[in-house]
């Protein structure tokens, strides 16, 4: 098993903040909108440097999505910022009609995704956002795994034309991807080649998958670990190539089992290469208040859960 070094502990939302500032320096069409969460989204540095390109919308997310669509019509590249729940569920029809169906170049940037926002609890912990957004035709859905990758993804989506949902989180999290690694939208990243089981992970759970890979290696199991930072469009080739080799699959995500990465991968496999799949995800429930790590344990999104899923998947191999 390849060694991964933790170079820092940083929140992925800070990666977004840093990426946005850099994207804005490269391209004057980049504008930012925020609905009264500028500090939480780490958009303050951008706001400070480009006050005339920053639009404070107040606590009015539906209006913000409409404004973003209009700014895109005017040739701007709008980045909207609010929590993941208020970036998706709250404004679904606004996104659907004014952004997705109308194919507007809007980047919907969503912080505090998943359980790991912690104490604010289930009202804020959306676990359905990947599903909601990936169902929209033409929407790109990205869920990077650490600070460096979130920064790189932010720069990449600024250069890509079309609607994008970029999902990131609140807590400090291990940074282990290289600084300045180029982010290719839709291209899965092989982290560790293995022979016995394929683990496809996204977002914060990529780190859990790596830790699980180490434990599996000690047990003599060779896990292939692939970082699916882009859930849509999904890198079908990478999924099929790996599954062909290992003949069993685990998916891991900080999301509901319904509608998440696991569903997307299962769909590709069912249609092309039926393969046993075990899913590490939240089992059709809402979240709750608590510390991020406690919640990952309680809702079975921990390293040990990935290990157990891998063992189950291997046992199901045909």
């Amino acid at each position: 098993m390849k060694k991964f070094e933790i170079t820092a502990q940083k929140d992925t939302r800070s990666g977004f903040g840093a990426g946005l500032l850099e994207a804005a320096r490269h391209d004057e069409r980049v504008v930012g909108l925020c609905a009264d969460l500028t500090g939480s989204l780490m958009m303050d540095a951008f706001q400070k440097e480009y006050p005339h390109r920053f639009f404070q919308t107040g606590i009015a997310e539906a209006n913000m999505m409409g404004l973003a669509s209009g700014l895109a019509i005017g040739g701007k590249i709008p980045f909207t910022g609010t929590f993941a729940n208020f970036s998706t569920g709250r404004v679904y029809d606004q996104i659907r009609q004014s952004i997705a169906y109308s194919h507007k170049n809007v980047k919907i940037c969503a912080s505090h995704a998943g359980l790991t926002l912690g104490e604010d609890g289930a009202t804020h912990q959306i676990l359905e956002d990947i599903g909601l957004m990936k169902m929209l035709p033409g929407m790109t859905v990205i869920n990077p795994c650490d600070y460096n990758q979130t920064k790189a993804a932010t720069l990449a989506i600024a250069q890509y034309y079309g609607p994008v949902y970029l999902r990131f989180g609140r807590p400090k999290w291990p940074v282990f991807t290289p600084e300045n690694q180029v982010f290719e939208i839709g291209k899965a990243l092989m982290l560790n080649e293995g022979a016995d089981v394929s683990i496809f992970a996204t977002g914060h759970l990529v780190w859990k998958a790596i830790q699980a890979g180490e434990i599996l290696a000690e047990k003599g199991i060779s896990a292939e670990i692939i970082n699916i930072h882009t859930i849509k469009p999904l890198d079908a080739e990478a999924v099929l190539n790996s599954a062909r080799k290992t003949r069993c699959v685990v998916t891991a995500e900080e999301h509901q089992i319904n509608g998440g990465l696991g569903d997307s991968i299962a769909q590709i496999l069912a249609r092309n290469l039926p393969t046993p799949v075990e899913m590490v995800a939240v089992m059709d429930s809402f979240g709750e208040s608590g510390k991020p790590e406690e919640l990952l344990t309680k809702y079975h999104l921990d390293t040990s859960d990935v290990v157990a899923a891998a063992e189950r998947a291997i046992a199901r191999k045909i």
Partner: protein
Amino acid sequence: MDSTQLQVMATQVRRDILRQVYNVQSGHPGGSLGLADYFTALFFHFMKHNPSAFSMEANHEDVFILSNGHVSPVYYSVLARSGYFPVSELNTFRLINSRLQGHPATHEGLPGIRVATGSLGQGLSVAAGIALSKKLNKDDRTIYVVTGDGELQEGQIWEAVMYAAHNKLDNMLVAVDFNGQQIDGSIADIMGFDEIGSKFASFGWEVMYMDGNNMDEILTTVPQALSKLGHGKPVVIIMKTEMGQGVDFMMGTHAWHGKAPNAEQFEKAMAQLPETELGDF
């Protein structure tokens, strides 16, 4: 309770707010402290409710809906101290496996809560629905609602404001927590509305004004507001409050909207709120 007793209770509620937020180092003290007086007056003086036998339907009881759910610490304190659940349960605020979620929820079955709030802008619509059901049930009790002022930026609020006036929901008393602050700064800087009251009035609401941090004024204004119910219009009180009221260094700023005090700040804050015979949790 009389005014003096209510003021003692409000001080205890403020102590509870600080302790809850301090214990877990998370939560929203600012708005909660500003609302302590009004919540105390409602739960211990005005509302006809039945804390020891909580019923979701609240037939022939007054109903309270908190739309700005982030001020859960003030809500939990008055619920516990009026008897909905044990005061000691305040120790579980925002912890895993607790009924006291970061934002009020029905999901864990906490008595006193009738709908989850936290995502802003939704509570007034739910309250209007309850108002409709009371009319259908020929139940003449009152629906009390609290909303934030920043929260009024959500469009859904104005859908509900329009609806309540058009449908003559004159069994609703809404209080807007007019503290002039939200997360990113003052309301005036973020999305200023010069005069909230005239906006409600133009939609057809009866509008009143009150200092929400003056117990005597609350005790005279709320009965006047209640006497305006039943005349074809919903009633709103634009309630001036101070975010962080009662703790000098938390006042006059938006900084304490959603920030927990450290140990030193906690001691300093508690020292400004004299212990009461009710006792801390």
